[in-house]
């Protein structure tokens, strides 16, 4: 059992390893979204000066030890934190005390992505390899729906990100199956499938604050912004050839 866990974990490491030198691109993606969100921050293409490290923090306020494998997904809502990882569980716990509240065991592979509903009542969870996504009740742990839209393709259909729209209505999910899919958060009905041209494994999906647009980044490095209702591409931040696996 332990060996199997280590093997699966190494797959996750490969998934992350695929990203190569993604840092710069990742940061670029983040700022692109800030700009689209209406930020008027000054443009600065100047080289960074040798920066001081700022405040150094070495001691955590709290360390949660409920997992028995690396923790690959964390999401915070109000006073609760949900975390998931290589032990295939999602655990909900008190952000102030670390007291465990709930353990969800509906997934059979590494938990790679999770997102709270805006009202804090539900959690959506995606995992590696299996390609299915589950929405469950954050208070009871009851599974509310299972979304299988990423399981249409052979090969690795790992879910790389899930994001609940700020208005609560939709969920966007990105996958190594080369798509970002938008679906109804209450019914699981598929609404839209977005693919880049040429198709690329997708690393992240993030909603704009008004729930109308999505910034999705690909393992090919670029960040694509598209209209959530039509799938029309609105803008592209070209990558530097390294995959983008993080955006906000």
């Amino acid at each position, binding site marked *: 059992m332990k060996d199997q866990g280590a093997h699966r974990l190494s797959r996750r490491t490969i998934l*992350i390893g695929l990203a190569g030198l993604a840092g710069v691109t990742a940061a670029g993606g983040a700022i692109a979204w800030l700009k689209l969100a209406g930020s008027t921050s000054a443009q600065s293409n100047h080289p960074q000066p040798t920066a001081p490290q700022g405040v150094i923090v070495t001691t955590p306020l709290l360390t949660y030890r409920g997992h028995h494998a*690396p*923790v690959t997904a964390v999401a915070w809502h109000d006073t609760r934190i949900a975390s998931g990882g290589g032990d295939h569980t999602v655990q909900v716990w008190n952000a102030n005390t670390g007291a465990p509240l709930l353990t969800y065991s509906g997934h059979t592979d590494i938990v790679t992505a999770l997102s709270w509903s805006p009202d804090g009542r539900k959690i959506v969870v995606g995992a590696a390899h299996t390609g299915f996504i589950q929405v469950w009740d954050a208070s009871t742990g009851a599974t509310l729906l299972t979304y299988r839209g990423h399981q249409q393709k052979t090969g690795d259909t790992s879910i790389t990100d899930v994001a609940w729209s700020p208005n609560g209505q939709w969920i966007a999910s990105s996958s190594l199956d080369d798509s970002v899919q938008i679906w109804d958060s209450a019914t699981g009905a598929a609404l839209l499938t977005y693919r880049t041209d040429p198709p690329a494994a997708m690393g992240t999906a993030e909603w704009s604050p008004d729930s109308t647009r999505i910034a999705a980044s690909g393992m090919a490095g670029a960040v694509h912004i598209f209209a959530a209702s039509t799938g029309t591409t609105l803008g592209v931040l070209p990558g530097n050839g390294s995959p983008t696996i993080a955006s906000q």
Partner: protein
Amino acid sequence: MSTRKPSVRYHGHGRFTVPDIARSPDGRYIASDALDVQMWEAATGRLRLTYRPGASAEFFQIALAPDGTRLAVGSSDMTVQVFQGL
């Protein structure tokens, strides 16, 4: 459709893969992680805080508290660590 350009490039993690970034609720800061967690100004890229606990580990996903003052980060050492931000 238009081609966009980055307004800031942040190089604080060197050549290490950055598994996640998170934005503070007010949009002022970005937190990014690799072998440590770095919080920097979104507008300028200036590093403001580094979280670097003693034991070496790789960090995966970051989540900020709703008020942005604390951060939670998932680690390869099987823990989630909550620490004080800016």
